[in-house]
């Protein structure tokens, strides 16, 4: 059973993915129930495991591909943190996507790849060895491509091309790093940090840099972030997936794994690579915000906001102090909840009111109140207002920065707060304070679109409000850090 569970949890999305591909376009009922069923089953399994893992259990499944190429699936607390997020959001996004697409063509392909994407994310989260991490990382890259290209029009295809143009060299760098490291240390299992003494410090730094380039593409670290705003050409559920459920999260998660389970925080500090990475993350935070300011398309602005926000996670990991780590980890969840809310809402604005540009938001607060409330909550969470989720992460990051002896982090956080406010508040201002254009239309009579947004918005409030509770993401992140990376 302990071996079956990780596999089972992977299969809950892999099987729907595989079957969906072969479903006829118009078998909506079967497809929807398959995908939703998978999601529900997965959530159930995760809840079960949450309790078990909190009690100290670990689950492991091994599949040796070739000597040294070990596919190891392992449920630890960190993995669970990530998959609970992705599973929850998968479920909601599926509901949302079903409503979003209605009876548009190529749905079997879409949902197939969508589930595959989630399966890849799950696998990535559960990976217990570098090589399985890489395998799922790539699977994620590949399964995302058709989603970005889904509309098959020129912008989508070009976005998809840009995506691959960033992702594949990134993978090459990652593979390079993995192999360089493993050629000296043997296969790297996350449970058993490798002995790095075989490599000289310069080589280790180079390996670290390659690792960061590799996962940094996914995490949209500046200057590897160009694909993310471009990918906005994709439909809203895909954006939700890219920004919250899977892709950038995978990158950030990768950074955490690499720092804590491959190199080990102590080594990262000893090598002196943590601070440059933190600096890079900070640059990304600021740069993403600045670029977000310049966008007049809602989704583009949100995309740059993601660039900025995801680097919080990287920052937390790079600072390599327990509190920063907690902040980074919890932001993994928090950013996901908030950003998916924002993208859900952006999709609703687009789909139900035809609003793509920021100027179109004028007065939408009256027309689409639920959506606008959710959007506002998401935005304020991003700014870091208490008691919303973003505040908690930011607070821990700040404390962690001080703990790590990097007080400049506070400046970065403050600047980011200000910039976030600068690019989000005008949106709220338009939503609520400005009169709607005379020809503005729109309504939110689409519960399947609105409810997921409401749920995630509520969750974004809830996880902040109940942060100190042991079952909150913060509680879980603290558990991870104290149990697995504690002194």
């Amino acid at each position, binding site marked *: 059973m302990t071996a079956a569970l990780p596999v089972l949890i992977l299969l809950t999305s892999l099987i729907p993915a595989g079957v969906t591909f072969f479903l006829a376009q118009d078998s909506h009922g079967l497809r929807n129930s398959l995908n939703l069923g998978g999601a529900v089953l997965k959530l159930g399994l995760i809840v079960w495991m949450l309790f078990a893992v909190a009690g100290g259990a670990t689950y492991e499944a091994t599949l040796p*591909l070739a*000597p040294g190429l070990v596919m190891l699936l392992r449920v630890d607390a960190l993995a669970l943190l990530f998959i609970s997020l992705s599973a929850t959001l998968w479920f909601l996004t599926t509901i949302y996507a079903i409503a979003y697409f209605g009876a548009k063509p190529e749905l079997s392909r879409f949902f197939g790849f969508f589930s595959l994407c989630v399966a890849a994310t799950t696998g990535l989260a559960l990976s217990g060895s570098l090589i399985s991490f890489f395998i799922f990382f790539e699977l994620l890259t590949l399964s995302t491509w058709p989603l970005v290209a889904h509309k098959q029009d020129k912008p989508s295809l070009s976005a998809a091309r840009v995506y691959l143009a960033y992702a594949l060299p990134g993978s090459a760098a990652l593979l390079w790093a993995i192999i360089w490291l493993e050629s000296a240390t043997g296969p790297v299992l996350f449970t058993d940090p490798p002995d790095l003494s075989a490599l000289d410090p310069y080589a280790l730094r180079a390996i670290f840099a390659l690792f960061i380039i590799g996962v940094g593409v996914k995490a949209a670290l500046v200057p590897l972030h160009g694909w993310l705003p471009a990918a906005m050409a994709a439909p809203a559920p895909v954006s939700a997936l890219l920004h919250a459920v899977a892709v950038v999260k995978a990158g950030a998660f990768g950074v955490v794994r690499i720092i804590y389970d491959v190199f080990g925080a102590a080594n990262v500090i000893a090598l002196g690579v943590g601070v440059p990475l933190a600096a890079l993350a900070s640059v990304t935070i600021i740069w993403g915000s600045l670029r977000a300011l310049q966008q007049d398309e809602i989704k583009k602005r949100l995309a740059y906001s993601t660039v900025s926000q995801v680097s919080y996670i990287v920052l937390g990991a790079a600072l390599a102090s327990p509190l920063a780590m907690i902040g980074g980890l919890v932001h993994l969840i928090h950013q996901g909840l908030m950003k998916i809310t924002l993208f859900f809402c952006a999709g609703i604005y687009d789909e139900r009111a035809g609003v793509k540009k920021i100027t179109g938001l004028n007065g939408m607060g009256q027309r689409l109140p639920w959506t606008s409330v959710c959007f506002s909550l998401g935005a304020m969470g991003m700014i870091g207002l208490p008691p919303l989720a973003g505040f908690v992460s930011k607070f821990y990051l700040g404390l962690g920065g001080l703990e790590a002896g990097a007080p400049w982090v506070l400046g970065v956080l403050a600047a980011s707060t200000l910039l976030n406010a600068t690019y989000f508040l005008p949106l709220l201002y338009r939503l609520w304070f400005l009169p709607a254009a005379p020809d503005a239309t729109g309504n939110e009579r689409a519960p399947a679109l609105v409810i997921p947004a409401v749920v995630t918005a509520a969750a974004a409030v809830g996880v902040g409000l109940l942060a100190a509770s042991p079952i909150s993401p913060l509680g879980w992140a603290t558990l991870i850090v104290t149990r697995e990376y504690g002194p």
Partner: protein
Amino acid sequence: MSALVVVLTLPLVTALTVLLLPARARVPVVLASSALIVLAAGALALAVWHGGPVTLAVGGWAPPLGIALRADGLAAALIMMSALVMGAVALAAQFELTPDRVGARMGFGFWPLMLLLWAALNAVYLSRDLFNLYVGVELLSLAAVALVALSGSAQALAAALRYMIFALAGSLLYLAGVVLAYGAHGTLDIGLLAVRVPAHTDALALGLMTAGLLAKTALFPFHVWLPPAHAGAPAPASALLSALVPKASFLILIRLWFEAMPDLASGAALLVLAALGAIAVIWGGVLALVQKRLKLIVAYSTVAQLGYLFFIFPLAGGDGSAQPWAAGAWTGAMFQALSHGLAKAAMFLTAGIYIAAIGSDRLGDLRGLARTLPMTGFAFALAAITLMGLPPSGGFTAKYLLMTSAFAAGQWPWALVLAGGGVLAAAYLYRPIAALFAQRAQTAARPIPRAWQAVPLVLAALSILLGLLSAIPFDLLQIGRPAPAQEGL
């Protein structure tokens, strides 16, 4: 042993039978016997798996008088891969090369040539005798050239002739080496040559044989015949030519360098071989980028992919004994050969489907076909994953093993080429994929039977599966692995 004989002779028997059969019975017989050969290949692999290498002294005469055949893990794996590809090609060709579609000439000609090619491949995989290998390679070349010329167009004939010239020149160089080897040692058996008394002429013999085989394996800069030839042949034939034929001559290279004369290997020569391979990877990739026809892209991709194989020379065994993937490079290159075979065959078969559907393989005409022929588009994409070396495909396992040993051997530039080649592959394979996935089909496509569409999909899936289940082929490849592949040249 009986499986070995079946694998060796059944393609021949079938070829002869097909010549005598009426047109109606041709395809069923070929398919039935293909199935039998696949089974026999499986049985042979099992026999090797359980009992170690299977040896057969033909006619009961042991070397140096007679010819020895030996199925080690490598040969068994290649035979298995070839059988799968051949079976798949036969399945696809029964739709594609029907007499009413392509005429009685092609409808007849393809089948015996394909079977002769198969026979030649299996003969080469198994043979341990240098001259017997020469005859086998000649049979292979003649059948391959004939397949290239099958379509009968002027370009195809020119491509076939060019191929012929390269192949003949290669054969002669190889023959020269064989002559010197026998002249110096009185034997042609690889096993006996391994324990020979070294002679001064051995270097010349190995050099000549190697150069000849390079021309046949289409290593840069002797690849120039390959793209027009592979692109000019009918798609099922291209699949065979690209997926299997170069592997045979490469296998002989391996036999020579790792089994017959490993003592000769010198650093500089190894470096030259791998450097040519590296250039091939880049050059093939770059030229694939500028092609406008799908089959040419795929053909140049073969040039690039074959380049990886040559990293085996400086890397094999170079990773020390500490790591669990000892002999990584050797096994990695073989994985590359296997997975490339499956994926490349799948790719050419998809190209055949597109040509059958719209009558062209220009990228511009392929737009939107993923919607019309989703299974085929999916197959192409899967095969592309293998060629790019992305996990969890066989191509990835190959690249991983090669890269690991490149690092372990301290020769990281090869790893750079491996990584860069993957990116380049992504770039050149992206163009057809993007075209396929573009919004609207411009040309009305003729319907393609689903069974035909399924064939390349199965092959592509196999190439992925090779990565997912790489432990089994990995272990199989270790059986009878020559010692120099463990300790390095």
